[in-house]
């Protein structure tokens, strides 16, 4: 193996030419052995596309909650709902003054959230048109924190909250239900129970189809946002159920939770236990699930690649046996072990690389079909293509190594005598 000619490039190029001669000979057999690699690489590609597309979709839908969002609320460890009600929510309106005034360095902005709790039904209507929208009482920064853009109108101002103005921001589905599809609801009025509200903003459409398919989430498009003060008037209480805050960055999420909880603990003398959710934790969970799905696919693809590799090993082994005499001749006329080794190794690498390239094409086609069927976005990935080619070359080297070494070690006298 020590004799590698001074001109390495010529050695490589000539070796490739000699290898390619044999491939043409055994066209069908080569093609069949390619199949395993092709299918393996195609599955790798398809899995990559699915997992990338899935990631994209999940991240995009999670974005609809604000990527830096954290939620802090009272831990509800009491099973009796009436007792829970009596004990309060652990967050009071008075707390908001302290929480708002730059209390927490890791927090950029925050908003209280009040929900409709219990079984009380509220009738939302305009004339004989009704809506089953979910209502939220929120602060002025809620829209920014929760990534809620407006397609028309304006968001609440501080004044609206302070004066308990009966103004509302509604989702597109709510608009359709109350005023008819495609209408401009700004300035129009509707009733919640007996209280009249004026629409000042229309929420942008949000897609949460994928998340909704995993766990029940609120319908982002069928919401009514009210100033929490007006919401309190409507409900006849002073409940704040949660604080939604935006941390400075995803990395600040945990710190933001700690700081908010510490302020609340201070305000309430540690009377309530608090719980928190962070967007980061949700993203982590989603990643985990997608990775699990990908892993199953990767295992399946690996099996296919393994089978393909064994197929190539078989082809190259056969090729070595069939050409024993030729190997003897090549050695007689001056081929070193390195020459022979390289020739057969490259034969195997060529087969696997051709297989890999076909697999890339097939995988791209499969990805397009999958993207079309699942509605996932098609995200081309250079790193994935590079990986697939690297894997097929690796398979070629691994499966070609043993037969190539056997060829290189054939003794010329014996090889020449072989029939």
């Amino acid at each position, binding site marked *: *193996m*020590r*004799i590698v*000619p*001074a*001109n390495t490039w*010529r*050695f490589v190029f*000539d070796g490739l030419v*000699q290898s390619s*001669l*044999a491939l*043409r*000979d055994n066209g069908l057999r080569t093609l069949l052995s390619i199949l395993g690699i092709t299918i393996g690489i195609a599955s790798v590609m398809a899995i990559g596309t699915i997992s990338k597309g899935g990631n994209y979709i999940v991240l995009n839908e999670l974005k609809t909650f604000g990527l830096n969002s954290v939620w802090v609320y009272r831990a509800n460890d009491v099973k009796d709902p009436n007792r829970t009600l009596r004990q309060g929510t652990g967050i009071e309106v008075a707390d908001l003054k302290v929480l708002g005034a730059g209390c927490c360095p890791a927090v950029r902005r925050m908003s209280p959230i009040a929900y409709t709790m219990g079984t009380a039904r509220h009738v939302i209507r305009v004339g004989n048109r009704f809506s089953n929208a979910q209502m939220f009482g929120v602060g002025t920064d809620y829209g920014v924190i929760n990534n809620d853009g407006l397609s028309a109108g304006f968001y609440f101002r501080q004044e609206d909250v302070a004066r308990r103005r009966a103004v509302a921001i509604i989702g597109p589905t709510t608009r359709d239900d109350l005023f008819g599809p495609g209408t401009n609801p700004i300035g129009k009025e509707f009733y919640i129970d007996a209280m009249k509200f004026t629409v000042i903003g229309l929420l942008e459409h949000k897609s949460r189809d994928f998340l909704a398919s995993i766990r029940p989430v609120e319908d982002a498009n069928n919401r009514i946002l009210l100033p929490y003060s007006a919401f309190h008037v409507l409900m006849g209480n002073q409940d704040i159920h949660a604080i939604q805050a935006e941390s400075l960055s995803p990395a600040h999420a945990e710190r933001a939770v700690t700081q908010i909880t510490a302020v609340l603990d201070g305000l309430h003398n540690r009377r309530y236990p608090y719980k928190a959710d962070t967007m980061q934790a949700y993203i982590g969970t989603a990643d985990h699930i997608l990775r699990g799905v990908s892993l199953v696919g990767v295992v399946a693809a690996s099996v296919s690649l393994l089978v393909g590799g064994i197929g190539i090993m078989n082809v190259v082994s056969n090729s070595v046996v069939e050409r024993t*005499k*030729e190997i003897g*001749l*090549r*050695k*007689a*006329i*001056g*081929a*070193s*072990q*390195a*020459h022979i080794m390289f020739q057969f190794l490259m034969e195997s690498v060529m087969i696997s690389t051709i297989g890999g390239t076909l697999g890339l094409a097939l995988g791209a086609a499969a990805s397009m079909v999958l993207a079309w069927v699942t509605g996932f976005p098609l995200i081309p990935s250079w790193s994935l293509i590079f990986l697939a080619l690297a894997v097929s070359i690796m398979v070629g080297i691994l499966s070609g190594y043993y037969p190539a070494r056997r060829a290189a070690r054939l*003794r*010329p*006298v014996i090889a*020449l005598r072989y029939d």
Partner: protein
Amino acid sequence: MIVLRDVRKSYMLGDVPIPVLKGISISIERGEFVAIMGPSGSGKSTLLNLIGCLDNLDQGEYHLADTPIAGASEDELARIRSQRLGFVFQMFNLIPRINALRNVELPLIYAATPPEERTRRAFRMLEAVGLANRADHVPSQLSGGQQQRVAIARAIVNQPDVLIADEPTGSLDSHAGEGIMHLFKELNRSGITIVMVTHEEDIAAHATRVIRLRDGVIEQDARR
């Protein structure tokens, strides 16, 4: 050029060593044309393989152009074959997939000759054996005699010191065989040492020296 001193070689048949060469000493000068003859089993092919550096000897000494061969590694032998030796076989041993010119080029590939020079030299060799007009024919399109001429062109393309020929006319009719011998004599006159195994007396008659083997020893060594 070739000096063998008390060379021994045996093959293992299971655990039992079968001696094939039992102490051969030969000295072949540059420019000789030697025919090795002998009945089958006499060791003539084994001897030729040793001289051709295709196999290593068990005991004794072998110098090829003053280079000791005994104990050389596989790759050293490969280099010596590439630089000093040319081979012609009974079955021609051309690679069937490639044309005559590419076949002749092969030894130059292993000698790392630049591509342009390769083609030029290979073509000149085909001219020398009278097959320039068959350069782009694959072996199956050539007659036996023509194939052997291509093989000879291949053997001499890297200007070897010694041409090793194993029954070069064994698969040819007598007319084609005569042609090959004619070519051998021409090559020999140009300075190439030839060592040839044959069992045909009239072929051996072209050589300048005939070595007869029997049972692994030299029976007769006659110069003409």
